[in-house]
């Protein structure tokens, strides 16, 4: 039964949850939890903040599940909720020191990476946090999550040229930030 449930399409699970089978929501959480944790961590600069954001986004998605117009596209709808949560979080914490957040992400590096690689990751994560959320997001979706411009445009309901413009500004700003750090 468990494997059958886990193989069920998103839409079927969403409809079951809306019909009152709350426990099946756990399947959706398991399915997408880790996939979007990395996006949130790079957007927010800390694994702890990412954990809070992903958890809050799943709770909010459950509360608003009836508003998910196309249950078969649950994950795209969930992504937008998580995205808004990440943007709001960065706005609330924009006065906090990004260096601390970047260090927190890099802290786990030391066990499984060389010191130099760890330092390069820390420097880039620090520079990423200096971008605008829009710039950081397009960089994370393309270079961390590996999506194409076309896929990002579809997910964010925007155009490829505007994404490229945003990304190219991000490249310049990252270069400037990384040079200032060295």
């Amino acid at each position, binding site marked *: 039964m468990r494997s059958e449930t886990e193989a069920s399409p998103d839409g079927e699970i969403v409809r079951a949850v809306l019909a009152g089978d*709350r*426990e099946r*929501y*756990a399947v959706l*959480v*398991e399915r997408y*939890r*880790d996939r979007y*944790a*990395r996006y949130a*961590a*790079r957007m927010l600069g800390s*694994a702890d903040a*990412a*954990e809070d954001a*992903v*958890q809050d986004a*799943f*709770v909010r998605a*459950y*509360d608003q599940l009836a508003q998910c117009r196309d249950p078969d596209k649950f994950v795209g709808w969930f992504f937008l909720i998580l*995205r*808004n*949560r990440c*943007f*709001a979080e960065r*706005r*609330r*914490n*924009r*006065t906090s020191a990004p260096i601390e957040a970047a260090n927190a*992400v890099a802290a786990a590096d030391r066990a499984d990476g060389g010191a130099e*690689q760890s330092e*390069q*990751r820390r*420097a*880039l*994560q620090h520079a990423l946090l200096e971008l*605008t*959320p*829009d*710039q950081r997001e397009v960089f994370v979706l393309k*270079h*961390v999550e*590996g999506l194409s*411009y076309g896929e990002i445009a579809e997910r*964010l309901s*925007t155009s490829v040229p505007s994404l*490229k413009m*945003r*990304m*190219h500004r991000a*490249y*310049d700003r*990252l*270069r*400037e930030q*990384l*040079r200032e750090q060295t």
Partner: protein
Amino acid sequence: MSKRDFHPLVKQLLDGDITIADLPAELRSEGEEALRLLAAVDRRPLQLPEVTARVMATIGDPSRRKFWRRVIEPREIRIRVRPWLLAPALAAAAALVLWLGRSGSPAPSSDLSGLVTVRFVLSAPDAHDVGLAGTFNQWDASATPLVRTGAGLWTATITLPAGEHQYAFVVDGERWVPDPAAPAVDDGFGRRNSVLTL
């Protein structure tokens, strides 16, 4: 293009459209710098095994559901249109104009089912793009873009439910500007949010 900007061909390299071998010799070193930047991208997965149990415990908490029902259930609110909202504040750098759903003179009150159309105006001649972020769009700076209407004015017209809304303009994706034509409150993090009460 400042001297600190990557050359457009190097940006194509970063985008994966060309390889470093396609760059002219004078751009190779800049291309290598760009590739070092990409090599530092952290793509390791992050696992959050605790989240499932926490989410399921939260959504199954009966006291929480009661709280949300209190918050979500519609309540009748009688509102009064404030005269200052109707006064043209165009002398200020930013202005807010209220359009009532019904034409003619302003209705003295409305209930919750009466939505109000609001036009937000910002004078920002040097801006490349302007967004409106607020409690009504989860502070998503890209959700409600303003349109340039000439003479450096940017506008957005949206419909909002009665109640209090907090907002700010976001210029070029990074500068958060409160509306000087509206009252403001501290957001608790050292910045000011504009307040609109409908």
